[in-house]
């Protein structure tokens, strides 16, 4: 798909937002930026860079993107690092460290890294910062991973590299660590022009709902997430059962296919068992590329639930809010950054609380509508791709004004 241009975004966010991006970009004239990560396709980082880099270049900030190379063994080590950063115990051996460092050295021989700003994404290429000494350029380390409770030895190993950077960037205050370098907070974003988020006509929504055979004769309560215990799908069913005596509604649990995930298949069985023969509880499996379908389902829903027990930033909530839907979500991970309780959605801590608020929102559609409107506005101003681009421009500028809390450009 051809990348969208600034004029396309202007139609969504308004000319003032784009004008400010141009003003900021003008202050970076002549600077060259290099992004480095570990994969050109697949994964959230590659997706966001694919959308962003054309926008930076259109703004006049010369930006390019390199990908490091590593063999299968190297990626097995980085997978271990990834798991350990998430707090899942891994044995991180001396051989793993040696292979990690050796791969950094090999890539240093291949990559020049002399741009004014080198922007490294995630742990895989973190060791490239060694080159900073040669060119005295500015280096940023962007951590896309939840490192709120990492395995200590793995984090200490990485920290040695991270503290050589000029700036670090995290997605949520809860993910940050004690570091000797400044830590910026840059929340993730959604692309309002992607298939998952673009406006759909009523006919498009109807067509998808009919094709997927999802009846629309009752208010629809939906949770979109993979079948994972941390998303608590069984808890959602229990919360839904708690309102049945008072409200006539239908629950839809929609998630990715569980074929290649043994735990996912197990959770799916538990979900089906909890749903029993209730005709008002639907469980739907969709392929991971079903962006348009998810968009339509979210738009057709009356209330959207995200009852996660643990969550990263929670972009599925951002997507639901963007569609103007009232959202009930757990107060975990990055969710409280997106939902101010009773203003732009509802935050809950239990099955009972979720049940209570479901009943409230289904019975008070005017209040639910107001929450949905506020939620959409909140995303418009704070969690779209253009805000992400703006934060990165500010981040780049901040490198040239170290230790200043007030900068006049």
């Amino acid at each position: 798909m051809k990348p969208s241009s600034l004029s396309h975004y202007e139609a969504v966010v308004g000319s003032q937002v784009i004008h400010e991006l141009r003003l900021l970009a003008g202050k970076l004239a002549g600077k060259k930026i290099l992004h480095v990560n570990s994969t050109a396709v697949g994964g959230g980082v590659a997706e966001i860079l694919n959308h962003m880099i054309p926008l930076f270049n259109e703004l006049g900030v010369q930006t390019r993107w390199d990908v490091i190379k590593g063999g299968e063994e190297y990626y097995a080590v980085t997978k271990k690092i990834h798991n350990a950063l998430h707090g899942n115990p891994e044995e991180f051996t001396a051989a793993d460290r040696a292979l990690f460092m050796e791969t950094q050295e090999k890539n240093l021989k291949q990559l020049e890294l002399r741009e004014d700003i080198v922007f490294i994404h995630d742990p895989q290429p973190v060791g490239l910062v060694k080159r900073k000494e040669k060119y005295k350029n500015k280096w940023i380390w962007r951590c896309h991973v939840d490192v709120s409770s990492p395995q200590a030895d793995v984090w200490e190993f990485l920290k040695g590299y991270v503290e050589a950077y000029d700036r670090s960037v995290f997605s949520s205050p809860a993910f940050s660590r004690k570091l000797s370098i400044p830590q910026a907070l840059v929340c993730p974003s959604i692309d309002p022009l992607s298939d998952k988020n673009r406006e759909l006509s009523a006919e498009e929504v109807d067509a998808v709902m009919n094709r997927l055979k999802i009846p629309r004769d009752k208010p629809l309560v939906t949770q979109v997430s993979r079948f994972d215990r941390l998303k608590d799908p069984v808890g959602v069913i229990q919360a839904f059962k708690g309102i049945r005596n008072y409200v006539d509604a239908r629950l839809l649990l929609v998630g990715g296919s569980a074929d290649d995930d043994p735990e996912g298949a197990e959770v799916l069985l538990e979900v089906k068992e909890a749903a029993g023969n209730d005709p008002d509880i639907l469980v739907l499996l969709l392929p991971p590329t079903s962006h348009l379908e998810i968009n339509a389902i979210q738009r057709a829903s009356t209330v959207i639930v995200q009852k996660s027990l643990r969550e990263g930033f929670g972009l599925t909530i951002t997507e639901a809010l963007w569609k103007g839907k009232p959202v009930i979500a757990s107060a975990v991970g990055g969710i409280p950054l997106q939902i101010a309780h009773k203003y732009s959605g509802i935050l809950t801590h239990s099955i009972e609380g979720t049940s209570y608020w479901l009943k409230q929102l289904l019975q008070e559609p005017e209040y639910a509508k107001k929450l949905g409107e506020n939620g959409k506005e909140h995303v418009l101003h704070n969690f779209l791709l253009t805000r992400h681009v703006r934060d990165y421009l500010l981040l780049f500028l901040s490198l040239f004004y170290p230790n200043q809390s007030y900068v006049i450009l």
Partner: protein
Amino acid sequence: MKRAKYPFIFKAQLSLVEMTGVKAATLCQLRDHLKEVPESSVYYHTHHFLRQHQFASPEPPNDFAYWVTHALQEGVLGERLAAIDILQFMTLNDLRNAFIQAIDLSFKNGCDAKDLRVSPAGMEFHFLKCTIFTIPTAEIAYDLKEFVNCLKRISPNCLYNHVFESCLRPPYGVNDFSNWLATNLDEHDLARKIGRLDPYTQTMEGLRGKIIHLAEQRMRE
């Protein structure tokens, strides 16, 4: 119509949020850290909601009030913190002290009281701060008519800069619009009326509409 010698140059204000690594799970911790965090953190937590929720009316309160109410479930103190009149304070340090004082007053049995609530896991208060950037826009006004036309076009970030942020810069307590109208166009009455608007209790667009209304009313006189 009088033309100013020095034009009003509209400037947008944008901020990059940074983490301090400091967090609180109880009221005591909130108070103790509040004494030590940089002023830019006090500023962030008493102002960012205005921009993040610029569309909402009623707006959520400042971060301290919101956290005390929703994470600690301390409704009475939350209400008191929400009611702190930010406009009254000329410096961020004075504002900081007002919050500390309100928290101190709420301690009936001192800070070690066993019944002091702890926020649920994951809902701790993370102290953030921000680096503020101001950047001039192409919008420039020499007289009242141009001023109104610019006001209609500027971004919320620009409006924010001249109404909220300006009160914390010399001349303290005066917004940039009122200052320029009075000192460059001798529009003292209009400056006073704009200065009396409470920006903290209305949406950014509501505020823009009121300033434009007052200026247009003056032009018709």
